[in-house]
């Protein structure tokens, strides 16, 4: 009985494990502190949040294999679906919280070197012959799948939904990729540290972070005309919270993401908040951009995954080194 | 402690290393196991020590069956060919080992151990080396330390596997004397392995000649030398000239300046002086066969100086014939012995 064990834990420190993906480290570092303070004030109970980060797919697999996450905050709904399939959480998890269970969003932007020497302004510039594009491998990186789908979506739009053209476009784009890192972070390092490539396709928040951490004077962010609305979802892992008796605090934790405080922290870490007020407050930071969703363009993650990324899918077909 | 070995056999796979051996060694005896390489000497010694199992037969110590006794209950001292000194222990600790591992109620006190080890060190004249490690002493010294270590536990039987095999000729000779002296003093039943007939003849009270896993002959040095039971023993125990399947020892060849009786002419190929004897290599002129003669001082003086290239007359008087003993296997072909 969860309430029972919860009361037993009263006064003791509760521990919560948040299994997340790579680019959220800074976000959750700040958010966890804020939440712990909030929770202690509310209930008098100390809560310690343990964080695990890694490639989104790998993290999801760890949870499936027994990593007892109380909450998962991953890059794609698909990865959480996989956990649901393993029976660790409810099938309809995505309906449990507002906005498809995604308290913040992001999008895919371009990071280029200062002065934008190759003059890259929009997606079309990426398939020019002399442009070298850095993106991680969509087979292993959640971020890379967003990149891929953003490019695909753009091409569909440009060509009035012509799949063939889209395919051609993406194929050309990947021809320009000299290194396929296995994760988003690796790709950023390749672009920034190894100085390989002219443009990095990255989450907006990653691009900002790279700018901050690695030198504003070295890079510029380029916002393309159209991009994808990336919705990193969050949810409670039912089996774990039941076992740990942490359902209440885990729920509160995710709810807190939707609170003003939570939304502020997301915005500060360059995730686009859902809250209108916070959006307004950070208007300068997040320029307006035409965004399409996965559901619109690809009929949801399961579809996208099957069509594009599964073994023998479109990516495998078009990828020619 | 007398030792009886009864119908003992031991195979290694198909190979009969020890083949139905019967042997009795009286208490206090100094016995040599003598035989060519591979004849089973080491195997037999190790069986007595309990280091090797028997396939069949019994081993008795003073009429008590020891066949299944554990090694450490046999009270044997064993000196390995390459000494097997404990490399990581000082000479003192090597000798003290057997005392230190005794069960607590039998173990002497530290002082007693120390006294005993120093007595032994004095006995082997190596007191000043107590603190050295085996790697820091010479081969002959190692040999003596190994012996002291074996003696420390006051064994009833002392077993030595080619105790001088790894030593220089000169050092070997000195240690032979020393080992005999020790036996004179302690009177422990001692069995040592050797493939050197001179060593066996010089040191042992009893010689056990082995070949191909069998005991071929047992007796005093004089017995086995003078009354060999077969060709093998005869050939193995000393130099020998072969004459159409019969044998004669070089010192039994007589040389003369002039023909006499059944003598034949021979040409001197080489003359060596080995201490008090003169060894002469000759070729029979009638059959072009090489043979050797050995003269002692008196005989050499009699015949007078002999030089390479001279002609003399030789006589084979006491040719030995083993042909009647067909059951004894002949010595293997010359080249396979080498």
């Amino acid at each position: 009985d969860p309430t029972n064990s919860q009361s037993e834990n009263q006064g003791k420190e509760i521990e919560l494990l948040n299994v997340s993906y790579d680019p959220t480290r800074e976000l959750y570092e700040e958010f966890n502190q804020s939440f712990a303070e909030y929770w202690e004030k509310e209930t008098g109970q100390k809560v310690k949040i343990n964080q695990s980060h890694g490639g989104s797919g790998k993290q999801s697999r760890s949870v499936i294999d027994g990593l007892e996450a109380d909450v998962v905050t991953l890059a794609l709904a698909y990865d959480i679906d996989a956990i649901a399939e393993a029976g660790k959480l409810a099938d309809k998890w995505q309906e449990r919280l507002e906005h498809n269970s995604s308290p913040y969003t992001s999008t895919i932007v371009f990071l280029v070197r200062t002065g934008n020497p190759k003059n890259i302004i929009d997606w079309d510039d990426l398939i020019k012959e002399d442009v070298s594009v850095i993106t991680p491998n969509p087979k292993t990186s959640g971020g890379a799948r967003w990149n891929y789908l953003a490019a695909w979506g753009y091409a569909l739009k440009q060509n009035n939904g012509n799949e063939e053209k889209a395919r051609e476009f993406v194929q050309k784009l990947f021809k320009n990729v000299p290194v396929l890192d296995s994760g988003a972070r690796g790709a950023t390092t390749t672009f920034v540290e190894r100085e390989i490539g002219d443009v990095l396709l990255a989450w907006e928040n990653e691009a900002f972070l790279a700018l901050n951490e690695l030198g504003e004077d070295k890079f510029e962010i380029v916002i393309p005309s159209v991009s994808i609305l990336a919705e990193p979802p969050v949810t409670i892992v039912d089996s774990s919270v039941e076992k740990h008796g942490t359902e209440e605090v885990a729920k509160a934790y995710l709810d807190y993401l939707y609170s003003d405080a939570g939304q502020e922290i997301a915005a500060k870490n360059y995730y686009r908040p859902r809250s209108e007020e916070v959006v307004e407050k950070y208007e300068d930071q997040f320029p307006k951009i035409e965004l399409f969703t996965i559901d619109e363009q690809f009929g949801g993650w399961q579809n996208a995954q099957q069509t594009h990324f599964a073994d023998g899918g479109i990516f495998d077909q078009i990828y020619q080194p | 402690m007398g030792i009886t070995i009864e119908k003992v056999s031991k195979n290694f796979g198909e190979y009969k290393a020890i083949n139905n051996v019967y042997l009795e060694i009286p208490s206090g005896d100094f016995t040599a196991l003598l035989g060519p390489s591979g004849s089973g000497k080491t195997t037999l010694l190790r069986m007595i020590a309990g280091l090797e199992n028997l396939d069949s037969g019994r081993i008795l110590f003073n009429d008590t069956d020891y066949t299944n006794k554990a090694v450490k209950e046999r009270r044997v001292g064993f000196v390995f060919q390459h000494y097997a000194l404990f490399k990581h222990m000082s000479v003192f600790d090597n000798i003290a080992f057997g005392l230190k591992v005794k069960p607590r109620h039998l173990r002497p006190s530290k002082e007693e151990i120390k006294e005993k080890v120093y007595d032994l060190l004095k006995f082997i004249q190596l007191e000043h080396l107590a603190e050295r490690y085996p790697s820091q002493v010479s081969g002959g010294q190692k040999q003596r330390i190994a012996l002291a270590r074996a003696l420390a536990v006051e064994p009833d039987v002392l077993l030595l596997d080619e105790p001088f095999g790894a030593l220089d000729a000169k050092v070997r000779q000195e240690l032979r004397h020393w080992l005999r002296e020790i036996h004179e003093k302690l009177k422990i039943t001692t069995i040592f392995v050797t493939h050197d007939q001179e060593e066996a003849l010089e040191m042992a009270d009893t010689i056990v000649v082995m070949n191909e896993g069998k005991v071929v002959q047992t007796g005093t040095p004089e017995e086995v030398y003078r009354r060999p039971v077969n060709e093998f023993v005869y050939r193995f125990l000393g130099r020998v000239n072969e004459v159409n399947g019969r044998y004669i020892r070089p010192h039994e060849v007589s040389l003369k300046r002039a023909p006499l009786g059944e003598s034949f002419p021979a040409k001197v190929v080489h003359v060596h002086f080995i201490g008090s004897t003169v060894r002469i290599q000759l070729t029979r002129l009638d059959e072009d066969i090489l043979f050797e003669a050995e003269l002692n001082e008196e005989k050499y003086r009699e015949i007078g100086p002999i030089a390479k290239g001279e002609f003399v007359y030789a006589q084979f008087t006491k040719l030995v014939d083993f042909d009647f003993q067909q059951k004894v296997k002949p010595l293997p072909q010359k080249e396979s012995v080498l």
Partner: protein
Amino acid sequence: MFKKKKRHHQVLPAFGLSMGYTLVYLSLIVLIPIAFLFIKAAAISWDDFWSIITDRRVLASFQLTFSTSFMAAFINAIFGTLIAWILAKYQFTGKKIVDAIVDLPFALPTAVAGIALTTLYAPNGWIGRFFEALGIKVAFTPLGIMIALIFIGLPFVVRSVQPVLQELDQQYEEAASTLGANSLQIFMKIILPTIFPAILTGFSLAFARALGEYGSVVFISGNMPLKTEIVPLLIVTKLEQFDYVGAAAVAAVMLVISFILLFLINFWQWRISKKYETV
């Protein structure tokens, strides 16, 4: 199996005990877990299995892994022998340090090695920039993978060959020289055949290690499917797509192939030494 040929129990004790412990521990830690890998891989039909392992990407990664591992082990066999040679035969200042440094790849975590090597051999790295100037790309190419594999495999060869060279009796070389051989002949005809089994051992250890290496390679390889994707990474990739069976299948094939290769090399080595050493 594992039954003593010769009963020695009176002399050296505890054969049964120590052998029993060995077998139990070996089974628990190594054999049973490995067996489950094969059970997992056996859960799919032969056709599925075949299509998994004959996939273009899988085949490409097998080819890449085996060829870079082989090349790296081969280069290590040559330079490792050379290093063993100078350590065993020559005196020079700093020899102790050189001797110690050889073991560094054993001790340095592979991930650290991978990061450090990538930093060095990237086009803008300390060493990579010189190659870049020559138009040679090192990091993110098979060449880079080879460098990482050379790094991790070197000590295996040196440590296999060095003791043999050290124990190699000078007399053989001297005998050959009194028979009129020159130094090249002495090396080729006397020394090389003698140390060859040891080189082979070192080679096979370095090769086996290289086949399985992950930590140091992922950083420097660039991970391009069909081009610079090694088998262990492919296994990880499959896992990240929740494809356990596929991962187990590839892993099983990998294991079997490395076993066979290792076994053949060991057998060859054993044959050589058996031929000369039997008493």
